């Protein structure tokens, strides 16, 4: 592996160390320069790596151009060896670009967004962001599951630190803890999968597990391992039933939400399954479960998003929903489609969050969309970019979301038409809630206070540059994956990723039938038309919204309360655990543990108090005891042979 590739993860780590250690000495400008600069350099290096990979693929299309860096063994025992190894291949390089590219834009944006913080906190923020990027880079660059797990835990830690960044607010800390605990539940699955692989194969290297050695696995092993890995992905990528942490993660500063939702963290689960595509393709049961879970999450989260009034909560549920689509894609074997959607989603979701941040910034930390309105007049750049992102996520051609979502839906149709219809229903809901959000925020009349209206302003340039860049990417990002129906062989991404997915895809395409081009075109047209209708309906309905109309009842009320899932978890898991904890605290701890420890102490002190009575101070009593003792000894040894002989001799 070229040594410059090592600097891709090392530079953000360096930035973390510099900012973290020097947080009390560095000025804000220096901090921002270090933080954003390191990620930018990393991005440039990723660009080089990408260019190199592109040239190699061009010269020798379809071949595997994996580069591995293997300096030492992490663990070496007779049963197995775990190497410390990094790899860069087609899939990794794509993720490197997404992570560092979008990461850099978010860093740039944060420099302006967080400028109200004091320098030490500002530096702390950038240090955490850099550590986050570093962890994610380690995650995608690892050459075995253990290194991936390191990165996996790293992003979990960083999400905890960043969600609870404003640690003086108890609710934010609770949200951070929730994210951490939920992720831990998933991580347990991942860890068990690693143990399983070590037990059966004695290796966790991708090359071994997906290669020759992997053929030693029985179908049961593969199903179990893939299911356990999927449990890990559920936690990290917020799928039912472990999704509730993601909406709560909105407690963090908005750039953090963008980073978690777009470039890092939640895509980790997708990456992991895409990486393990060989195993997943061999486990049809797991694939079905993945697809169904993904679809259920997509629909479930979309219904919740219909009735949320917090700008970030809507986006959070839309992320959960879009992640559901990605898992649907993975479940039906459309690995390229899932990765494609990760990429386009990263563009438009980062844009949406940064746009939301811009709005929140202008509204002085007001997040309720019912109190906004008509912001297009005051914030033209934010408005235009936000609109483009909404169109992209809704799936209007030729925006990026259309291509990736279409690819997943077509693959879903081939697997099971029901998946397709439900997926389309979800897409319609997506269009509806996104344009509800858009209309309530940017159209109609302003519903905030006079003071807020007075201060409305477009965000500063460092915040709008990332918006514009991301908007351009959201618009054109889809053209790297044009489906065959428009132009034969134009799906660049599929060719690029083919070396990674070839084996996994081979299992899927066996016996799979293809749609005719006319059928596919009709489906696309109908769906696009439906989405447009929904958008028009949504915009018309919510553009004329006036305050006080919202009084949810019936189903709307249930949706507003997020199906009461949090309450359900509260009563099912949290309360019993609290009660168990209370039992341990109030009974086991004081009665059993303290009782045993204190009991021994009490016994000793009671005993010594009794024995102390013997020491009365009366000389006479001491003497009496002495003499009695002598008599006792005499009686004890009365039968002694020598005494007996003495008595016999003289008496």
């Amino acid at each position, binding site marked *: 592996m070229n040594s410059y590739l090592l600097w891709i993860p090392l530079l953000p780590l360096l930035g973390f160390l510099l900012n973290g250690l020097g947080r009390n000495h560095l000025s804000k400008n220096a901090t921002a320069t270090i933080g954003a600069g390191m990620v930018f350099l990393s991005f440039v290096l990723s660009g080089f790596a990408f260019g190199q990979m592109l040239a190699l693929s061009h010269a020798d299309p379809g071949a595997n151009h994996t580069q591995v860096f293997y300096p030492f063994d992490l663990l070496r025992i007779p049963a197995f060896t775990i190497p410390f190894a990094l790899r860069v291949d087609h899939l990794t390089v794509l993720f490197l670009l997404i992570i560092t590219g979008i990461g850099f834009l978010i860093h740039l944006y944060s420099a302006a967004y967080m400028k109200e913080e004091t320098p030490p906190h500002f530096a702390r923020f950038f240090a955490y962001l850099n550590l986050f990027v570093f962890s994610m880079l380690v995650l995608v660059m690892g050459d075995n599951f253990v290194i991936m797990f390191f990165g996996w835990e790293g992003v979990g830690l960083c999400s905890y630190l960043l969600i609870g960044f404003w640690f003086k607010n108890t609710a934010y800390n609770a949200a951070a803890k929730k994210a951490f605990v939920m992720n831990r539940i998933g991580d347990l699955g991942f860890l068990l999968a690693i143990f399983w692989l070590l037990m059966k194969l004695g290796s966790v290297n991708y090359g071994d597990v997906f290669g020759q050695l992997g053929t030693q696995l029985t179908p049961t092993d593969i199903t179990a391992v893939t299911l356990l890995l999927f449990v890990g992905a559920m936690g990290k990528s917020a799928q039912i039933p472990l999704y509730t942490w993601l909406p709560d993660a909105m407690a963090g500063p908005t750039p953090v939400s963008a980073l978690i939702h777009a470039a890092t963290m939640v895509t980790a689960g997708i990456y992991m399954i895409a990486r393990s595509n060989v195993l997943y393709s061999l486990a049809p049961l797991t694939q079905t479960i993945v697809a169904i879970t993904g679809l259920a999450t997509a629909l479930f989260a979309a219904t919740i998003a219909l009735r949320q009034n917090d700008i970030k909560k809507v986006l959070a549920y839309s992320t959960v929903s879009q992640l559901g689509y990605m898992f649907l894609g993975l479940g039906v074997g459309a690995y390229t489609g899932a990765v494609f959607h990760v990429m386009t989603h990263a563009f438009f979701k980062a844009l949406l969050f940064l746009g939301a941040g811009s709005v929140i910034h202008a509204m002085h930390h007001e997040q309720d969309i019912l109190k906004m309105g008509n912001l297009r007049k005051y914030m033209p750049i934010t408005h235009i970019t936000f609109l483009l992102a909404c169109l992209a996520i809704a799936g209007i051609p030729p925006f990026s979301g259309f291509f990736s979502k279409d690819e997943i839906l077509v693959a879903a149709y081939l697997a099971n038409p029901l998946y397709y219809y439900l997926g389309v229903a979800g897409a319609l809901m997506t269009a509806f809630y996104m344009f509800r959000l858009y209309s309530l925020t940017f159209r109609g009349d302003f519903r905030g206070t006079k003071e807020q209206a007075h201060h409305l302003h477009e965000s500063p340039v460092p915040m709008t540059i990332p918006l514009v860049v991301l908007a351009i990417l959201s618009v054109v990002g889809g053209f790297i994956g044009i489906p065959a129906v428009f132009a034969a062989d134009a799906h660049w991404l599929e060719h690029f990723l083919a070396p990674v997915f070839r084996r996994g895809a081979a299992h899927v395409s066996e016996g799979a039938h293809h749609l005719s081009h006319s059928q596919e075109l009709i489906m696309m047209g109908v769906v696009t038309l439906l989405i447009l209708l929904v958008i028009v309906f949504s915009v018309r309905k919510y553009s004329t919204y006036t305050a006080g109309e919202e009084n949810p009842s019936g189903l709307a009320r249930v949706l507003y309360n997020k199906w009461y899932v949090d309450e359900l978890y509260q009563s099912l898991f949290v309360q019993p655990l609290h009660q168990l904890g209370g039992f341990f605290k109030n009974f086991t701890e004081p009665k059993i543990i303290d009782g045993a420890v204190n009991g021994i102490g009490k016994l000793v002190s009671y005993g010594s108090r009794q024995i*102390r009575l013997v*020491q*009365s*101070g*009366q*000389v*006479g009593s001491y*003497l*009496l005891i002495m*003499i009695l003792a002598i008599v006792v000894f005499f009686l004890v040894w009365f039968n002694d042979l020598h005494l007996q002989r003495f008595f016999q001799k*003289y*008496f």
Partner: protein
Amino acid sequence: MPIQYYIYFCLALFSLGIIGVLTRRNAIIVFMCIELMLNAVNLLLVAFSKMHHAAALQAAPQTTAGIEGQLFVFFIMVVAAAEVSVGLAIIVMMYRNTHSIDINFLNRLKN
């Protein structure tokens, strides 16, 4: 004279000492009783020593076997003399401090 007489006598003497130590409160009398016990033991030592020596002489004239007991008596007397000097000094000091030589009064070390 048979050895039993010595044994009975010493037993009586020793018991008198014990009874005196246990019952009397005057420190000097307690002290004297201790001396009584010591001397009862001394007497018994001498008696047994003489007996063994006499038996040894019968077997081999000129022998010194069996006289160690009498030697020990002198050791005991020396130690007892030293003990008496220390003990009496303590009693004198006690009297100076408390104007009493009642041993039951000496319970200050209690607790």
